[in-house]
């Protein structure tokens, strides 16, 4: 059995084009649109020889593979490594990286803790924090929107909502980036991420313990599920870890990308100012248009077929969410950021049973920031080009100098 990047090397399935591309090339990661388009144009699947994986980027197949958990499992890892054959760098997530029935048990707890109601209860608090931050930035006029806004806001409100007693902004952001870089091949990005492990992982693990969480907050509610016997104490710690892994860097990215969309599409921003009701669908359009999680894998656990293509058991399939979200056949004028679009059906938050369990919280956080901006800021402008920060699974900005002009 020949292994490659931690999984079994496969033969290219009959009729599937072979494409010698590196989806993890830093240049592609920074500016993926041409790669997305070529991936879609080649067919429902391509075979990528250097990693011996299949990749899909058309909406239909990507949705099918990403949401059919029976044929395309998550328990063998959502990155390139196959957990059935190799030991992952950290104990697997007990929600993201498991299948039913194990998944159903932990998902139920998390869906309750992060319900729309729970997110709604935080709305005023989130809005107050957003008003304060936006007022400060308006006062200053120009600022670095990633370091001084996108990274600041979630690391302000999220630890509080979690009930973390200790906060280290840098560690919280970097841990997420690390977890996502770990999903890629053994490249520079992954090696650098792994090198940060010894410093960050012990700190994160410590914060997941019951005694390091306040009496109130998502952390305490997860431990309450342990007290009620739904999960055990160790599992509660693991679920807190999931929130620290997936809850910070993603939202930072969502805010940064939303600002980028508005700064580069001033006519769309005008529409939002005129009609704040569009804010909610506008964030969905930001998600569709920028796909903060650009790709995640699944592993076939049996021989199967998708759109007439035979796929062998044990195949890693890279589901390129960014490509699916810009598929012209699903989204007319996909290349246009359009706040009047109703982008329901985008895959930026996943689909099906693993669909983002933190989405209500993400929407509440980003929604509060956007509501504050629309109310206070007349004009959003880039003062220098934005730069993207390559990551093996996240498409995020690195820096974006912005200016805010009041109404």
């Amino acid at each position, binding site marked *: 059995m020949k292994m490659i990047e931690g999984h079994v090397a496969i033969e290219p399935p009959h009729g599937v084009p072979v494409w010698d591309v590196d989806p993890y090339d830093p240049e592609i990661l920074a500016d993926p649109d041409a790669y997305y388009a070529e991936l879609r144009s080649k067919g429902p699947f391509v075979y990528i020889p250097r990693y011996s994986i299949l990749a899909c980027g058309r909406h239909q197949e990507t949705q099918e593979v990403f949401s059919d958990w029976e044929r395309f499992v998550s328990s063998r890892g959502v990155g390139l490594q196959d957990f059935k054959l190799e030991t992952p760098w950290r104990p697997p997530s007990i929600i993201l990286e498991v299948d039913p029935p194990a998944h159903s048990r932990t998902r*139920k707890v998390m*869906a*309750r803790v*992060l*319900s*729309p*109601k729970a997110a*709604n209860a935080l709305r005023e608090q989130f809005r107050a924090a957003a008003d304060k931050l936006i007022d400060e930035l308006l006062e200053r006029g120009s600022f670095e929107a990633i370091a001084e806004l996108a990274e600041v806001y979630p690391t302000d409100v999220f630890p509080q909502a979690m009930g973390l007693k200790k906060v280290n902004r840098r560690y919280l952001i970097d841990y997420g980036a690390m977890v996502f870089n770990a999903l890629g091949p053994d490249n520079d990005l992954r090696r650098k991420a792994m090198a940060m492990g010894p410093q960050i992982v012990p700190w994160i693990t410590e914060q997941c313990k019951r005694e390091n969480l306040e009496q109130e907050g998502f952390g305490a509610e997860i431990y309450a599920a342990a007290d009620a016997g739904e999960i055990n104490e160790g599992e509660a710690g693991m679920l807190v870890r999931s929130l620290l892994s997936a809850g910070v860097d993603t939202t930072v990215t969502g805010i940064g990308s939303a600002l980028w969309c508005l700064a580069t599409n001033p006519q769309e921003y005008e529409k939002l100012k005129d009609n704040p009701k569009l804010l*909610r669908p506008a964030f*969905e359009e930001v998600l569709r248009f920028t796909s903060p999680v650009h790709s995640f894998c699944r592993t076939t656990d049996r021989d199967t077929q998708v759109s007439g293509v035979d796929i062998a058991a044990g195949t890693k399939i890279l589901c390129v969410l960014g490509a699916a979200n810009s598929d012209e056949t699903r989204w007319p004028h996909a290349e246009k950021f359009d706040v009047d679009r*109703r982008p*329901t*059906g*985008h895959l930026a*938050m*996943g*689909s*099906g*049973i693993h*669909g*983002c*369990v933190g*989405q*209500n919280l993400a*929407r509440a956080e980003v929604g509060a920031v956007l509501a504050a901006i629309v109310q206070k800021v007349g004009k959003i402008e880039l003062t220098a080009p934005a730069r993207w920060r390559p990551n093996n699974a996240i498409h995020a900005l690195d820096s974006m100098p912005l200016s805010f002009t009041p109404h």
Partner: protein
Amino acid sequence: MTKVTFVDADGNKTTLDARDGDNLMQAAIADGIDGIVGECCGAMMCATCHVYVEEPHLTTLPQRSEGEEEMLECTASERRKNSRLSCQIKIGPDIDGIVVHLPEEQ
């Protein structure tokens, strides 16, 4: 194809031929029905696909799952006895002619 009817909060009716195998939320979105948002696209996380189902279909629909029960506690408009999540209603011959009312708010 299956006939489904949406009645909005002002009483306006839209009847459409929905594709079997989809769910009711998807059919509404595909047809541009306002009043169904479907933000989580069926992951049962958002409760923005809330509908009130008329008889006789209310009784004949499969029972709510535990997840649907919990999510219906989070609806923006009041939960009633006939509240359902439209993303959990599969389209097929058994719901032909179904009539659902849309809430004021999602």
